[in-house]
């Protein structure tokens, strides 16, 4: 039976046809090349699980050669960048709450006096440990530092202070997530990740589907105004978004025992602009995508950098400057800080505010583009 044989001519004909179709669907083709490239760049260059140059504040009440050496030693370790010198305890707490600094080093008043007496004074390191992976290496580095950093100052009669036990006692206070539980950081963050994924994909799909099936034309020939159609299509998904938020909050509390320190109602209010920002991205994609497959691909193209560059999976401060700059544009980056800030740090509106305007700005820009493009597709 000839017919049942594998026929190379027929086979190559089908291969050829697939290639022609692949080339015709420009967006899909671009995504097939673009997504691996994006992954290559993000994973290859942006991701770094050993973050260095973490912003650190030094509160030194002891102006001595030893404290200066310790600061110098911190700098030299390349893990700590001294960016602030706070003047009060209140300022320190604000810097940590807003996430301006990752660490605060306290050098107490009589540090050098006690050190010289061999009383092993305390050196206090306060860490924002919401993301355990962001601080782990740095804490290991400072521990190592403790044993050797003062050796060059401890000369002559002071030499006997060297070695073990260490000349001073390092006390580490890990704030917000003292037990270094990864879930405490990941589970609240998941809220932002899920909202990004669902809101963008679902909106882009819902609108593209309506156009693809021709029902949009029908709808627009009725007295329904374009704005009514658009907002009417979006509102159900906002509801879905809030259901997701509730699910994650419940899971955080009852399954993962994530501490919920701050105000849940504040979080619910601030979730709204974030949801709308993502919906706006979805609308914009729906105006570009020709079919539902393309809509999904575009959503993925946005989702991937959001996931990787926002600080959700990998410490934000471990990334090179350019990656952080991109991350700062993405609404997820700021929303993660808002969620973690409220749930883990107990932040109020004042501490959250610096992360609100980037979301608002993104929202306004995206909505403007989305609405403009949406109008163009009507004509």
């Amino acid at each position: 039976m000839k017919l049942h044989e594998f026929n190379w001519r027929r086979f190559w004909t089908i291969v050829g046809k697939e290639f022609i179709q692949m080339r015709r669907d420009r967006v899909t083709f671009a995504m097939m090349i673009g997504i691996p490239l994006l992954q290559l760049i993000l994973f290859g260059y942006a991701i770094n699980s050993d973050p260095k140059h973490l912003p650190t504040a030094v509160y030194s009440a002891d102006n001595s050669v030893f404290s200066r050496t310790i600061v110098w030693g911190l700098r030299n370790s390349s893990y700590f960048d001294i960016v602030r010198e706070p003047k009060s305890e209140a300022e320190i707490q604000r810097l940590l709450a807003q996430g301006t600094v990752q660490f605060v080093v306290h050098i107490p008043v009589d540090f050098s006096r006690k050190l010289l007496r061999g009383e092993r004074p305390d050196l206090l390191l306060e860490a924002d440990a919401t993301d355990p992976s962001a601080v782990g290496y740095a804490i290991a580095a400072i521990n190592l530092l403790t044993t050797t950093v003062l050796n060059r100052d401890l000369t002559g009669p002071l030499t006997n202070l060297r070695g073990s036990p260490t000349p001073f006692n390092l006390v580490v206070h890990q704030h917000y997530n003292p037990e270094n539980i990864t879930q405490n950081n990941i589970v609240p963050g998941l809220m932002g990740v899920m909202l990004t994924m669902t809101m963008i994909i679902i909106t882009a799909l819902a609108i593209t589907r309506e156009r693809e099936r021709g029902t949009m034309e029908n709808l627009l020939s009725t007295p329904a105004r374009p704005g009514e159609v658009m907002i009417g299509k979006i509102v159900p998904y906002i509801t879905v978004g809030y259901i997701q938020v509730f699910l994650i909050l419940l899971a955080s509390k009852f399954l993962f025992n994530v501490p919920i320190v701050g105000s849940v109602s504040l979080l619910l209010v601030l979730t709204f602009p974030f949801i709308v920002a993502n919906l706006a991205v979805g609308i914009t994609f729906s105006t570009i995508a020709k079919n539902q497959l393309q809509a999904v691909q575009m959503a993925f193209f946005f989702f991937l950098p959001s996931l990787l560059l926002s600080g959700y999976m990998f410490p934000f401060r471990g990334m090179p400057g350019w990656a952080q700059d991109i991350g700062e544009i993405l609404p997820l980056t700021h929303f993660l800080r808002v969620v973690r800030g409220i749930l883990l740090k107990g932040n109020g509106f004042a501490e959250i505010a610096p992360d609100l305007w980037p979301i608002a700005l993104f929202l306004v820009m995206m909505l403007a583009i989305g609405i403009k493009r949406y109008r163009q597709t009507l004509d």
Partner: protein
Amino acid sequence: MNPSDLVIDVQGITKRFGNRTVVNNIPMQVRRGEIYGFLGPNGSGKTTFLRMLCGLLKPDGGSGRCLGFDIRSESGEIKKNIGYMTQRFSFYEDLTIEENLDFIARIYGVPGRKAAVEKSLEQLGMTARRSQLAGTLSGGWKQRLALSACLIHEPQLLLLDEPTAGVDPKARRDFWEEIHQLAAGGLTVLITTHYMDEAERCHRLAYIAYGNLLARGSVEEVVKAAGLTTWEAAGPDLPALAEKIRGKPGVEQVVAFGTTLHISGRDAAQLRASVGPWMTGAYRWQQIESGLEDVFISLMETAKDNFS
């Protein structure tokens, strides 16, 4: 003609996409209760014209009134009073028949919505199948559902874009029966079609090609205005005869119709002279009336020379 009797009264309607003129300077006057056929080859601008009438697209040129409302500034009012049935089935396949009808009735704010939906289901004969998903209906039923949905708000003007494409002959006939009844009740219908038998069931016609209006009037008027002469030849080996005649001066179309050939052209004398040599012997010839199809193909061929 009393101008208030004109449901559609537009002049110079023009639409450009980029530098391509899709609809070029087209006028249209349609009277109340009239079934107006809108014909033309694929891509001739019919759908674009309909979209401009119902306010989905803004015309680049031209003006006029539809249902007494300005097509440029009062598209909102126009939309309330027309029913537009798109070429593709454009209701929700994942909604049931009843849900689709109810949805449309709500959008139009039909008074007594429940009763209107009920009546619509009854007329469709779908009362028992109301909970069936629209996506599971056959082509003919989908078309009937779409028509019912377009009529639920009792529009004064019905725009139908190739409503019978892919529908079987019986369903098509029923469909036209209904259109005629609706028109008799005062509804005005503008319908695009490719079928000549449907064109002949319209009160009046317009024919456009490449965005240009080529002919309009009743079927008789259009045929007469085309000034086409057609000969019918019967006999042995017609394909060979067609080969010989095609391309002779004055011969514009040679079309096989079953066991006969139709040969037509606008210059009657030249056509007669060209087919003369074969008018003896085995072939039987007679002059017949030109059909609408012959007229349209002739118009299209001429238009191709003029516009492209």
